[in-house]
């Protein structure tokens, strides 16, 4: 709860600084909004580590192959990075570039998820009577 107020404060400071600087230097206003976003994400990084530790413990109780859930973590990471970059692109007016980044993220996630699909297929083939 404490860091929620911090995040709101940082966002408001960033907005005010952007509004002040936009008529004087529009390029610096973009930099300030980027930095505000990065700082907020930094504050959330600590919570993410806590969440993933708990997820790791839960996954350790199940006897699933550990390489499978590592893929899920990686996919979530790719999602966050791609989202951040795409919103950065559309903030600075490059909407089409942001769409391309999103497309790239989707394709990379698909490529990363292929081992899961193949392992499901292997399980199905084992179940089928030969």
């Amino acid at each position, binding site marked *: 709860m404490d860091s929620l107020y911090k995040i709101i*404060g*940082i966002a408001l*400071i*960033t907005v005010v*600084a952007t509004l*002040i*600087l936009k008529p*004087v*230097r529009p*390029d*610096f*206003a973009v*930099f*300030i909004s*980027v*930095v*505000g976003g*990065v*700082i907020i*994400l*930094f504050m959330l*990084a600590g919570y*993410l*580590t806590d969440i*993933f530790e708990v997820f790791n413990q839960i996954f350790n109780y199940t006897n699933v192959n550990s390489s499978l859930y*590592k893929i899920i*973590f*990686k996919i*979530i*990471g790719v999602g*966050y*990075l791609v989202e*951040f970059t795409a919103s950065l692109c559309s903030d600075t007016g490059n909407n089409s570039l942001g769409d391309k980044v999103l497309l790239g993220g989707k394709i990379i996630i698909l490529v990363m998820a292929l081992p899961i699909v193949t392992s499901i297929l292997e399980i199905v083939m084992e179940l089928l009577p030969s």
Partner: protein
Amino acid sequence: MEVEIIFKIAAIGILTAVVSQILKNSGKEDISTLATLAGVVIVLIMVINLIADLFDTIRTIFNF
């Protein structure tokens, strides 16, 4: 600890705006352009460092 960087960037922006305005009014247009460019580069370096830190943190969290 990191909110200061927002104020820093805002201060650099206002400062370069003032400097380039003064230089332009005193007839040194080329130096004014250079001052603007220097300000942009300084801020760009700060921003890029911050983004690199963020990407490193994300890489360690999601163990890429």
